[in-house]
């Protein structure tokens, strides 16, 4: 008679879940770092260009202020995207763990 070991079953799931979380976490950090760097580089380029346009009197100070404040709004939207991407990663882990549970169950039932 074959004995089913729940502890072993859950240990397998736990190890699998940790591996999935590690992989997703690593990928997220990589993406967030690249994305954050690109955002700051863009911001720097824009500020340099706008300052030059103000000096050349092609942009008014009021227009410059609107653009800089627009960057502040944009930074908030960027932060919301990053928070959303983290939530998406959590959901991906959840889906992967569901698959793991189902696959593990299929091997023992």
């Amino acid at each position, binding site marked *: *008679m*074959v*004995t*089913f*070991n*729940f502890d072993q079953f859950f240990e397998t799931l736990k190890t699998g879940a940790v591996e999935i979380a590690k992989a997703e976490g690593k990928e997220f950090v990589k993406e967030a770092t690249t994305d954050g760097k690109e955002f700051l580089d*863009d911001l720097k380029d*824009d500020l340099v*260009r*706008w300052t030059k*346009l103000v000096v050349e009197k*092609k*942009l*008014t100070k009021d*227009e410059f202020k*609107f*653009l800089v*404040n*627009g*960057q*502040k*709004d*944009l930074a*908030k*939207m*960027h932060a*919301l*995207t990053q*928070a*959303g*991407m983290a*939530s*998406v990663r*959590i*959901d*991906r882990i*959840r*889906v992967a*763990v*569901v698959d793991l*549970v*189902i696959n593990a*169950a299929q091997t*023992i*039932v």
Partner: protein
Amino acid sequence: MYQYPGVRQPQALSAGTSAYRKTVPFVVALSVLFLVGCAAITGYDPTSYKTATDLKAESLTLIEKATDPPTAHREEIDQLRVNLRKAYEYEKGKEGPNHLTVQQWKILNDPQGNLLGGFLRRWEQSVNGQSQVFIEQVKGNIEKAFDQIIKLESHKVKS
């Protein structure tokens, strides 16, 4: 290990027994229900994606006309506002956690802000329209703002 008197020790579940056949699927179903039941963010929605990309194109096209006096484009401005409001209400009305996307639309549309809503208000308050140089620069900000909404939507989990 100390055995408490009168307390029955749990029996190992053996494959083929009735308890085994009942317990394993129950535990698995419970785990799956628990994991599926509490998503951190709403899933990918093709309607949301299309709305955001369509509105991006519509907005940028209208912004390019902002060198004209606003009176020449009153209807287009009003129509764009209606479409932006529809997109916001659609996201707000979704079931499940969607507050991040809702907040993004709110920032983009805010008439007191400095992205699309603020630009439309500024244009409407002017007499002769906006300068070409300013339009080119502001277009970049608004384009990036739409891209943030589109990026978040496109990364959501597809069911």
